[in-house]
Structure formats: structure tokens, C-alpha cells
């Protein structure tokens, strides 16, 4: 079972997209790949108020990921805590993972010529820290939850 989940408190989200950039800066990504996203519909008027709903999207870290079996070099892996990540050493940048993923989670990094995806900043998690997007969110709207079996 997945151990972690990131939740967006839409009451606090101001739609500033900072999470996307914090992610890119932390992972030292050039223009191109965007590993997490705030999505919102254009503002509509509802009973005299501008309204929209913001959604946060990053890799779902599927229970049974499609990207793992298609990887020809076995560089896509799933940890015991559920995090699906890429072993960059082994990745050849064929992007089979991106082709099979229904949500376009793996993306091509034009600098390394390899695939890159959200790994919940597992290096930070392993050091007792939270992912970059959660830690740095302008409005403290993103939250990391550790799930427990009940």
C-alpha cells in the first residue's frame, strides 16, 4: 500500500503555480518537464462571485503501475512505501513509460536525455523532510499525509 499522499487544501490554494517551479528548481530541471501541476478552469461567475476549483496533480504512484513492466531496462521501480521512481543510471530515455502512462507523469528531460518523474522527493522524505512542493507552497495549501492501515 502507498504510504504517502499529497493533498491540496483548495481553501488556501491561490493558484500561483509556485509548487510547479519549486519542484523544477529542486530537481534542477530545465524548461520542458513539469512534474506537478496546478490545474484550474478559467474563472466563471457563480451567483455574482468568481469561482474556480484548483486541482493538484502529480504522479499517482499507482498500486499496480503500468510504467514498470514496459520499461526495457528495469529502471522504473516501486519502493515498499509505494513510491514509483526512476533509477536514472539505468534509464535510456526511450520514454516507453510516458507512452503507457494515462496521466503523462514521466516526462523527458532534454538536458539528461532521460525520463524524469515525481518521486515525492524521496531523498528528502528519507531524511525526515517533506517534498519540495509541500514544504515551499506559498500559501501552505499543500499537505503531505502518511497513510495508515485501519
Amino acid at each position, binding site marked *: 500500500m502507498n504510504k504517502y499522499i499529497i493533498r491540496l487544501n483548495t481553501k488556501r490554494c491561490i493558484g500561483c503555480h*509556485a509548487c510547479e517551479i519549486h519542484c523544477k528548481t529542486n530537481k534542477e530541471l530545465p524548461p520542458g518537464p513539469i512534474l506537478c501541476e496546478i490545474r484550474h478552469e478559467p474563472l*466563471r461567475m457563480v451567483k455574482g462571485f*468568481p469561482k474556480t476549483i484548483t486541482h493538484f496533480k502529480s504522479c499517482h504512484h499507482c498500486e499496480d503501475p503500468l510504467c514498470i513492466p514496459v520499461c526495457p531496462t528495469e529502471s522504473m521501480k516501486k519502493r515498499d512505501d509505494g513510491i514509483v521512481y526512476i533509477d536514472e543510471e539505468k534509464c535510456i530515455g526511450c520514454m516507453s513509460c510516458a507512452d503507457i502512462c494515462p496521466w503523462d507523469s514521466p516526462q523527458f528531460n532534454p538536458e539528461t536525455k532521460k525520463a524524469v518523474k515525481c518521486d515525492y522527493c524521496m531523498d528528502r522524505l528519507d531524511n525526515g523532510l517533506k517534498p519540495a512542493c509541500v514544504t*515551499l507552497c*506559498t*500559501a501552505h495549501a499543500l499537505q503531505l499525509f502518511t497513510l495508515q492501515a485501519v
Partner: protein
Amino acid sequence: MRKTIWSMCGMCTVRCPIRVEVEDNKVKWIEGNPHLLNRALCGKGAAGPALVADGERPRQPLIRSGPRGSGRWDEVSWDTAYDYIAEKLHAICKEHGPESVMMSFRGGPFGDMIKAFIHGLGSPNFTNHDSTCGRNVHHASLSLYGLGRTDLIYDIKNSKHLVLFGRNILASLRVAEVNQVLDMLDNGGRLTYVDVRPTLTGVKASRFFRVRPGTDYALALATIHELIKAEAYDKEFIERFTSGFDQLVEFIKPYDSKWAAKECGIKQNHIMEFVQELAEDRPKVIFHPGWMLSRYSDSFYASRALHVLNILMGNLEVEGGQIIPKGPGDFGYKGLQSLDAQIPKPTQKRGDGVGWKHLHFDKGPGLFHLFYETMVTKDPYPIKGVICYRHDPLTCFPDPEAQKKALDNTDLLVSIDAHYSEFGWYSDVILPECTYLERDSMIAAQKGPKPRLIVRRKAVDPVFDTKPVWEILKNLADRLNFGQYFPYNTIEELWEWQLKNTDFSIEDFAEKGFIPLGDKPFLIERDKLASKIKTESGKIELVSKKLSDANLPSLKPYESPQAPPEGQFRLIFGRSPLHSHSHTINNPILHEMMPENTLWINKRIAAKLGVSEGEYVDVSSKDYGGPIKARISEQLHPEAVYMVHGFGREIPLQTRSFNAGLSDQKLMSGLLDKMDPAGGGLCLCECFVTVKRSTKNPKRRVEL
């Protein structure tokens, strides 16, 4: 091994405190100072490392080799550039006097050195960008309290009701303030938002007034009217601390909610419900008096009316109201030594007329745009040298072509900036400053409920041959024979000199990144409040003596804004949370997020023009125009079109931003002369543009 650097962000002018992790001279992590911002940082702040790595910025000093603006440059050494500037300034000072040199600064806490430089040279002409920003708000505040714009801060977190007239507080954002607003909302507070278009701030509002452009003053007047009529104001506060209330009562009589509802295009019962809420929530109500309010010809009076509403709420030095920021002295600390304070103040008249021709304006930075007139008329003296530090007047002020004509009367234009600016591109010399992550700054004192000392620290070594401003100005001052006013050779020596009278040393910043000067905020008791009001009369002057002396009304009768001529629209501009005006447009990462601006058009109007979302429209004014993609908005007022400021840049070396989107300031033909005579702000929204469906939209394609 990673090391921590405590510093200050520099991606916009808020300057959030940051903590940077560096390894092998590379920035690995940036976060908001955990002691002050709980690590939060905005998207612009996150794009700082991309700025450092970006080669599309001036990499070494440049001296113009072709005509101004031609983009032909000689790459020179720092010594050559210093010598060149010093020689030119010497010649100007000799022929016209030092007052013929002016220096502009984009604002912020580290201005002491900039003032010291121009005053050390012997010129009174220190100025800044504020006549296209908060000058109306500042002067409105001064006319009432004798206190400037930054002499009042807002305890938003503890307020019950925040009222914003066009202040898009969650997009033109300050991280700490955003969290205050959200905390206030989480605690059940109310947010009333007034604007001509729906915004993400409006999304969070509990009351949204979509008004006709230019009618903020009407809504503020009606709110005053109804509050007074309902006697829902702090009578004791008015009685004790203000003068001129009777005149206000008389003046406000015609401006009731029925009138305002019609004028603003909103419902009367909504105004009445709003007034009822204010009555319930006071004194913990904050009317934000505006930030960037150089907009309409009555913006000064609109801001003044918002201040009056605060006064009616009696919210001064009240929890959840307006707070007078405290300085080091209020907590028994000695202040910093100031470079500027040791220099005899130049006694010549200011070149912009402020202080002698215009007596009701604050002399401090004067009004930049008035120097343009002086450049042409040479009255009271010619302006021959212009130095802009981190300021791009050609993007900041309207009508750059008119500005260039005036600048052509000068002998020397110098841009000190980490970026290519439109002004820099037109200058004679560009002195490239290192980016904020590559430089140290002097120490500054920051007033607030809890005052503190702050400093910017270099996180990484400069990538290119760029220098920090403290070194640039020191070198120029030495060459111009007033180096004694810059009593340092290294930044460490400057810090030591600044801290001389205090008990602190630079090491004291190591723990938290700042030095706290008082941890327990306090409110000034009502009995002692009168001494904090700095008008001549010692009262909050609802009718200002200063304005009366200048033959200007304090309570100006309302004039309805002109409706745009047939086929034209009022051009409204604003900000996005992802760009800081023009200087981030070319940032590789921020450009990826928002590569160009769009023109917001009302849905009904767009249908009439035959334009759909994403199609090009041609926007034009008298002297400028171009294509821009349309964005259809359901509730933007039909009289208005809207765009984000800062785009439409024309610097070929900035390949990403070159001609991306359209520039609002270039569309503002003739607005350089349109100043609010009472507030000193320019009226940047008094601009009408023509919008047509563009021929750029492909109909068919016949290329084989």
C-alpha cells in the same frame, strides 16, 4: 557539504527573507526563512537559480558604440567603465553643476547608499519609480495623518473584515501577507473585493463588487455616506483625534448608496449589506488604501476616501486594524549608522519642482516623471546625467517614445542593473550588477510590529564579471572625489561601520538570518496616540491644511469617468503571481510558465468583435500597436480590456521575451504628462485603445 546562507530574496521588491543551501558554489535549495515564513516561498522566488544560470543578462560592463538604442556595445573592463562615467560626470558637474545629475532607485530597504551617492555628488535629485506606483496612496496618507504610506501597516491576520479596492492581494503577492489573509479567512473573517474583473483574490471573497472602471471613489464615498447616516462609526475616535468632520458630513450628503449603485453598476442592497457588515465588524476592519494606485484621475481622492473609512472604523493601533510600525528606538535599541546622514544635504532646488514649485508633495524621492519636463525646458536647470539603479523607467513610465525624446537632451545615461532593461538598452553605459544570490548588501533596519535588522548575503560567487552595487558606487565615488562618504573597502568594513553604535556584529545574523529588535509587539495606548499623528495641527486632518494651502480640495466632488469612445476600451493592467513586472519576463523558468500576456476581453464584446479564445486581436493607440492573443472573460467589465504589465519587450539579446506579448506602457500615448495634481501619481488607466480582430489569424494556408 551543504552550507546555509541566510539572505533576502530579490526576485521582486517584497524581499522575503530566505534560507539558501549551497554546495560547490551551486544553489541547491531556497526556502522562505523558517522563523518568519515557515519556509513558504512564491514561484518567482523559486526561479532565482534559473536567473543566476541565465546567460541572457549583461555579463560585463558595456559602453555604447552606436547611436542610443542601436544595441551596439563595446565590452569593457570595470576600470574603463568607471573612468568613462567619472569623466562624463566631471564634465557635467563642471559645466552645469552637480544638480544636473539625477539618480533613480527602484525602492526598497537598501536605499541609504543610493541617496548617499547622489547627495555626495552634490545633487538633491534622488528619485524613484513611485509616481507610477504608490505615490497617490502615500500623499493621501500624509494629507490625513502626516504619516506616509509605510508608516501604517495592517494587522490583517487578526482583522474581521478586509476590504480591497482593486488590490489583488493574492496575485500581486507578498508571501507573509498572503498567509495573513488566508489565516484571517480560515478564522471566519470576511473579505470584500472590488475590481473591474474577476481575479483569484475575488475567488476567496465573501463579497465581490464588479464595478465600472474608474468608479472606486464613488463606492468609497457612498460607504462613508451610509456609515455616517447609520452612525456606525467610532464617534469617540473622530471627536478626539480628527478635525474637519463637520465638513465631511456636509460634503458627503449627495453621495448615497442609491447613487453609487447606479454609478458603479452594482446593487444598492449589496452596498447596504456591506455597510451593515462593517458596523458589526468594526473596529477590526481594514480598508486597504491601495498599493499601485497611479490609475485614474481621482485615484488620490479614492485612496483618501479609503483612509477616511479606516478613520471612521477607529482602527488605528487596534488589534486587527492599522498598526503604526515600531522601529529599533521603540524597543530601546540604537539604530544603524546611515551613510546618507553624514553628508551635508545639497541645498539647490530639486529639478522636478518638488519642495518649491510643488509644496504639498513629499520631498524625499520627489517625482521622477517631472524631470522629463525639466530635461526639455531646462528650467530651473538642465538635466544632463541620469543614473538608474535597478530601475527601468522606459518600462515603468508610460509612453517610452516621449521619454526617449526628453532623454535625448542628456549627455550621460547609466543603467546599473542585473538585467538588460529597456532603459539600459537605450543607455550609454550598462554596469551589470550581480544577481541577488551573488551579492551582499548593506544592513537595513526593518520597522514593524517586531522590528529587525536584515541583510542580504552572497550565496554563490558571481557567474559573470558582475559586481555588487556597494562596490560599484564606492569605486565611482573615489573617482569623483567623495570617496570619504563611503568609508569602507570591503562589505565587512561597511557592516562594521553601520553597526558601530549598536551592540551587534554581523555574526549575530547567523542564528536566524535577521536580528530581532523586540519580540513582544505592543499597541500604543489611546492616551498617547495623539503624539503619533504628525500633521501640523496634531489632528487627523479630514480637511488638509497642506492641500488647502496648495489650493486643492481635500474633499473633491465626484466626477464620473469618461466612457470609452465607440470601438475603444479602457486599458487596465495588472500583475500575475508569476512575474515581477518586466524584470522576470525573460527568466527561463518563469517564461516557461507564462511566456506572453493576453488581452482579456469581455465575452459579449468578444462575440461582437468575432474573436474567440486564443485568437489574435490587434490593439492600438495613437502611436503604438500590435497583435496579442485574446482571452475571453465572462465578467471583465465591458468598458475595459486587461493585460499583465511588463511584456512586449524589444531587447534582442533577451531571446525569450523579445516581442513576446504586448506592452501596456507603449500603448499609453500622451500619459507621461497626465499627473494627478493632488496626489502626484500618473493616471495610467486613463488610456483608451482600439481592439480589432487581427488579420494575423490564419484563414487558409496556400504554401505548398
